């Protein structure tokens, strides 16, 4: 349980950071996003918290295929962003151009997170391999 809470908080922080960074980049193009205020950033926080919660919940299950897992997670992210971000906080108009733009941002954030996780995994794998190598040296 403790690990799940840590994972949830980590997930929340990462998704909030990446989303904030993307919004910061997009803020150079005022026509693309609304101007920032503390309410807007609070809405980011609520949406990313919902996403982190759903990711934590989804990670409790074992998926037979990597792509099925990606599809499930992306569907959850779309539902939260469109439903809460668009429906409740009115982040964007319900027009095709905005819906496509939001979908693009979601996919980018999702894959950046996955790539970061992959590189973190590689770092851990390197450390484990180093330990195995050290143990082998000690034994011979």
């Amino acid at each position: 349980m403790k690990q799940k809470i840590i994972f949830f908080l980590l997930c929340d922080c990462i998704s909030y950071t990446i989303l904030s960074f993307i919004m910061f980049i997009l803020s150079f193009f005022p026509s693309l996003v609304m101007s920032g205020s503390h309410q807007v950033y609070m809405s980011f926080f609520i949406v990313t918290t919902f996403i982190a919660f759903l990711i934590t919940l989804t990670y409790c299950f074992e998926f037979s295929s990597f792509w099925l897992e990606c599809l499930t997670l992306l569907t959850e992210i779309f539902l939260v962003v469109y439903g809460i971000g668009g429906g409740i906080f009115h982040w964007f108009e319900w027009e095709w151009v905005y819906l496509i733009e939001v979908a693009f941002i979601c996919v980018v954030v999702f894959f950046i997170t996955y790539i970061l996780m992959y590189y973190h995994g590689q770092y851990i794998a390197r450390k484990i391999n180093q330990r195995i190598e050290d143990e082998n040296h000690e034994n011979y």
Partner: protein
Amino acid sequence: MKIVFHQSQEKKETEVHVYYHEPLDQETKEICKYLQSFSQTILAYDKQQIYHLLLKDIYYIESVDDKTFLYTKDHVYLSKNKLYELENLLKKTSFIRISKNTIMNIHYLKSVKSLLGGKMEATLINQEHLIINRHYLSAFKKKFGL
């Protein structure tokens, strides 16, 4: 704890003697359990014959369709135990659960590789590949002091 190694030409095989003070502390208990695991056996079945398989000879244990298989260097045996029973039996040994249906002996681990989705792939010294599920990754890392 004092550790002493003696080299002897008279001994045909390695002997381990543990001198301890009562009551036995946790550290010594764990060392004893670990040492006993080298001579501990599991009942294994193959073609209606029963074997006492040494734990140190098992590379990994896998559960497939409600059957539990024990994999050694070049042989596969059947066990009548469930995977969770073996997991309990093998606690504090070199065995570790790495997925819903696999327990691996880290003595035979050659290397690990990161995979997408937070999983890892373990390569054993006999070149077999096993998947380490992310649910078990934390315990796996702990085994290596990470």
